[in-house]
């Protein structure tokens, strides 16, 4: 299933709330958490991360993975946490509104 473009930020931020992760790890986590329904195309993950880093929602640092690979690890900033809260609540609002419409018939 294709990921709605605007929700990628929300999913990334939510994933990072569990602790630092690298881009590939985030993508894998989203894939697993949605019962393999959502598949983030790897090519769009990195630009999204770059964009969020620039907005100050996340910070990055180079580290080494379990498999001894060099990779960039991302961590949520306080601004990112605020953003996550705001986006989460507006998403809930939106999805419950959609739900109401769908159930109304």
């Amino acid at each position, binding site marked *: 299933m294709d990921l*709605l*473009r*605007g929700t990628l930020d929300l999913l990334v931020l939510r994933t990072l709330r569990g602790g630092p992760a*690298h*881009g*590939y*790890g985030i993508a*894998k986590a989203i894939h697993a958490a949605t019962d393999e329904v959502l598949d983030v*195309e*790897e*090519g*769009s*993950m*990195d*630009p999204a991360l*770059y*964009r969020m880093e620039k907005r100050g929602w996340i910070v990055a640092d180079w580290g080494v*993975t379990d*498999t001894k*690979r*060099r*990779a*960039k690890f991302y961590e949520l900033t306080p601004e990112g946490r605020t953003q996550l809260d705001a986006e989460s609540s507006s998403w809930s609002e939106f999805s419950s509104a959609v739900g109401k419409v*769908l159930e109304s018939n």
Partner: protein
Amino acid sequence: MLSFLRRQFATGAGGRRLEHEIREEMLAHIALCADDNVAAGMDPASARRDAERRFGNLDHMVLEGGHAKRDRRDPLGQFPNRTDRSPGASLMTDLLADIRFGLRMLVKSPMFSTVAIVSLAVGIGFNTTMFTLVDALLFTPLPAADPDSVVRLGRDGTEFGDMFMSYPDFLDVRENAGSFTGLAAVRTEIATYNADGEVDFVFGESVSANYFGVLGIPPLVGRTFAPQEDVAGNHNVAMVSEKFWRDRLGGTEAALGSELRFGGSPHTLIGVVDDRYTGLVPPLEVSFWLPTFAGEALRPVTGATSGLERRGSHSFHVIGRLGAGTTIEQATADVVSIGVQLGQDFPDTNGEMGFTLFQASDLRIEPGIDKAMLPAAGVLMGLVGLVLLLACANVANMMLARGSVRRQEIAIRLALGAGRGRLVRQLLTESMMLSLIGGLLAVVIAKSALQLLLAIQPPIMVPISLAVDVSGRVWLFTAVVAMLTGLAFGLVPALRSTRADLSQSLRGDEAGDSGRLRGSRLRSSLVVAQVTLSLVLLVAAALMVRSLQNAQSIDPGIATESVVNMGAALAFQGYSPDEAQDFYLRAMDRIAALPGVTQVAFAERLPLESTMVTSRDVYLEGQQLAPGEDPPSVMTTSVDPNYFDVMGIGIDQGRRFTAADVKEAPPVVIINEVLAADLWPGQAPIGKRLSVSGADGPFAEVVGIHSEHKVSTLGEGPTRNIYVPYAQDNASGFGSLLARTQGDQAAVLTAMRQILREMDPGLAVMEVETISEHLALSLFPVRLAAAALGLLGVIGALLASVGVYGVIAFAVSQRTREIGIRMAIGADRRSVVRMVLGQGMRLILIGAGIGIVLSLASTRMLGALLYGVSSVDVLAYVAAAAALCMVGVIANLVPALRASHVEPSSALRTR
């Protein structure tokens, strides 16, 4: 300044570092994914491949490393701040990347690309075809060496025949002008060519011996004329065109030295002229060249002295080559002063006239005709331009629709930092590619269209040839038109789709996008414009069809059934008028005896003959013309007594000619009512006297009034006309032999031709035709115009219907949800169809309305081609509008029906 530089530097370095980091990270990303694959049991190589594949579109830019192909890593303009390239190189590599990306986009939506390219190819193709014709006719320079120094001598102070000079004047200018390295004379000739008994007419030029030298055209084979060959009494050398040489003489050098019979006398072939030069005056194609004196010998004898000795006989074009360092102004002053001198020396012939010079490249035929042809060419280019506009509107429409579909793609790129200018450039590259591919196809279309067009030789004996090769100029024109086209239909969609509201588009939220409404309004206006333009074309086409219908039903006033005609221009074949008369009379006796022939007649020319005009000035007895007043000029034809019976022309008053109207008898004429009313209003014309042989008579008595018939063209109103008895007036030497037949006309024509052949084996017969064939010839222009405009109209309507379909189909796809809701709350299929149809038909009706107004204003230009049809003909307008509306309904019905099959539940669930 220093700080600015430092800042620039920092950004540059930062940009590089950033880019490097992203690359590193992506590589890490792929490595991690590959590790997972290995853990899942893949072998390392396919694990890596799979990881790279899953990484998607951006792969090469990472994989190809940081140095060698650096520029290819930014195909989408994501990193506009890169400063490590020179601007020129960056433009070039961006362009290459854009072209690659554009090609991918074109291949990705083949339906869109095909429709766009075909629309453009047709639109540009029409323009290329028309331009090639106009270019060949008006702008192809004389194929001379160093054409800039070639000039043409003309006469000043004359209304007609500006470019014609008399031979003595030519000699005097050549003798006295110091500004030229050479002056040469040329004149068009017509002659019979007799190849082993097969005789036909060919066109040629007689030229002064230095002609090809002055033009700088070397002979393809053999040599050109020597001065001693261009003198009186030496008439035996000729050159021929490359085409003539190949088609008729085998195209080998062995043909040199052979005897060619032009005008009945033998000429030795000394050279062949390259086909680049086919005569001075286009589009007449000439086949042979003779020295001036030999050419003069081909002409009918018309006076006591040779035409080359008469200063008042203006028949030569004169070309010159300016001497080195001489300007055209200096040379003009030179010939002007010679003209003044000649005016003093020969006041009778030269008193009223001076000389002037034209740059040869500024002239096509002659100044007056050129002036008339340019606007005509403009109208034609305008018409095909309309078709191109239609195609442009179509493609612009499709681009706009696609722009909305690609909005998310574009928004993401903008979000990632691509500059708007960069994106516009890339979208423009895509439209340019469409139009350039269309342009290439257009040249292919134009080539076959030209072949078709040139196959339609108008049914006249004059050979027409145009250098309609797809020349460099044509390629250039097509390229420029294609680029402008690409810009025209690409710029607005590109600007519009890159102006997308970022956040909304990223979220995929279309409903709140105010740009969508504006976009649909723009698309609707484009459709209205298309409908308008195609209605103008359709109205023009309908008018032409009506005109053709009318022209076919016009009563020419002469018999069209059972009459055949055979023309022989004896004047061109060495016959004096008296010899010609004798020949015609003997031929008629023999034709009258043929089985199937009931009656024969003679006419100097037939009604509706377009190739020969024989007007004469009419003087009345005792009439004093006011100074400066010209006598009326009236078409005058000499005919024999049987003519009126055979041609079915009635005598309303008085009598027809009889056998008693011979040379010695008092001269008589038969005129028509219109002329009688003009000359003697309110009086009985019979018995009145007029002269067609000059102010001093002899004056001829009007003995009859003939019934009206068309004189020169089918479309003319009542036209003044005079008949004189052939027995009293045989001066022209031309003639048509007419026979009323019973049964097989073809057999009679064959037998007539055989009789002429037996009477003079060297004779060329000009026309062999039935009278209905003769009439068909006069319909040729209107037939051609109807076919051409009809084609343009149909193509235009098709393009417009594709446009209407596209817009409505797109609107329906955008409104699927709304339609679903309407149906969910109780709208039935019929009302949905009605709603969608109504939306489309509103556009069509608005366009048709504007189109009718525009047509009323513009079809007046067709005036001369309209036979008995007013340019505001109601039927034509109704037919055109109805045809367009019908096409519109069909184009609308498909999306409307599709809309009515929307499933309310699924429509609501999408998005």
